[in-house]
């Protein structure tokens, strides 16, 4: 379970998150929507401790992410993250990209790590690209590689930071399909996304962020059908 309470985040004087309270249950798929600059991506970075916070608490399975004594490197193994810019490691093959962290972070043996990597790459449909370097893969394939890399750590949670917004339109589908499969398998997911179709069809709840605040949260039918907030309705009218 991820529990966020009273979260404030500043970049210098810029107040990006202005008091967020949000709980994500095990097995839940939460989509986070909102305009650029509303703080959605920053929220993800605060959840896995890539960004420090100024006020409030983020608690993952009972561990306070931002407490001094928390070992972030251990905690992060529980949370896979997929980025907008897919960030595959260009100097490693697909197999090495995925096998590296299990081997050096989880201390698996070389052969075990490769076995895991192979399985995860097959899972995302890259079973025939094990030896390919990222430069030889399309954007969609690189993003699926990034998903496999995160999954190889056997995480409890997956954080998706606009995983499809840097992709060519014809490649978006394959990545969304992969995310859909994950959701069906019961993975707990927080997806910052601009894909309204995905948010509506796949998520259990949808959160609309506006100006650093959680404006409205509820099941997709509520947000897309009968939003309570005027702001939410205005935003959705614009993106549809």
């Amino acid at each position, binding site marked *: 379970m991820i529990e966020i309470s009273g979260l404030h985040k500043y970049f210098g004087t810029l107040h990006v998150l202005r008091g967020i309270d949000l709980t994500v249950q095990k097995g839940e798929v939460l989509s986070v929507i909102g305009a650029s600059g509303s703080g959605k991506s920053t929220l993800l970075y605060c959840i*896995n401790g*890539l960004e420090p916070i100024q006020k409030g608490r983020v608690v993952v399975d009972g561990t306070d992410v931002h407490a001094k004594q928390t070992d972030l*490197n*251990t905690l*992060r*193994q529980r*949370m*896979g*993250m997929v*980025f907008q*810019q897919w*960030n595959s*490691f*260009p*100097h490693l093959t697909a197999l090495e990209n995925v096998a*590296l*962290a299990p081997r*050096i*972070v*989880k201390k698996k043996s070389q052969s075990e790590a490769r076995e895991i990597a192979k399985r995860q790459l097959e899972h995302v449909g890259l079973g025939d690209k094990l030896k390919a*370097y*990222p*430069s030889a893969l399309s954007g969609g394939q690189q993003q699926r590689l*990034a998903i496999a*890399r*995160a999954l190889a*750590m056997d995480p409890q949670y997956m954080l998706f930071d606009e995983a499809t917004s840097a992709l060519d339109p014809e490649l978006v589908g394959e990545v969304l399909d992969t995310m859909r499969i994950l959701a069906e398998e019961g993975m707990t997911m927080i997806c910052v996304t601009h894909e309204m179709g995905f948010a509506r069809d796949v998520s259990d709840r949808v959160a609309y962020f506006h100006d650093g605040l959680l404006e409205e949260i509820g099941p997709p039918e509520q947000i897309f059908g009968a939003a309570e907030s005027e702001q939410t309705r205005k935003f959705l009218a614009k993106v549809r």
Partner: protein
Amino acid sequence: MFDYNFHWRPVIRSLPELLEASLVTLQVATLSMVIGIVVGLGLSVIRLRLRGPLYWLATAWVELARNTPALFQLFFFGFGLGAFGWHLTPYMIVLVGLSFNNAGYLSENFRGGFQAVPDTQMRAARSLGMNLWQTYTRILVPQVLRIVYYPMTNQLVWAVLMSSLGMLVGFRELSGETQFFASRTYRIFEYFAVTAVIYYVMVKFILLASRLLATRLFRY
């Protein structure tokens, strides 16, 4: 000048010694590069990530190494330290001096290299639970070394040529050896002409080898 008689025979006779000395040159240059790369990486990371005394120390190092004559740097490690009663062997003077110089120049290359790797690589690595050391050694440095590979090759060539300054602190590398024979036989022009050819061949060999190595190392 048309009446000068070339005498190549003494040079030919001491060719084995010259070739042996060129191995010493290669060795000290290569070793100083290895040290320079390791220390240079350290300096560049310090300058990119830290503030305070370590930052100033690293900056002073880079400033001195890059902006003073290499010869003065060798003199410092030779006669400078000697004045304080710390006597290095000629070999050590050249090794330490070249390493000092290499580290300074290379650290600036590395700094540019680190800045050319997107920040997101660091984030991706950290998000997988890698610690800072793993992130640097497994993700960032391999990419940096590729980016600065050719400038690094230049520095190695420079180190080979610069090691000739060793002759001025009494080190019998290729130039020192040449000087030794030249002054004994007075065939100064002949000796240094042949030595120049040896340097040329050595450098060409290094460039060729590094190009071959690159195609093996960088398959992406």
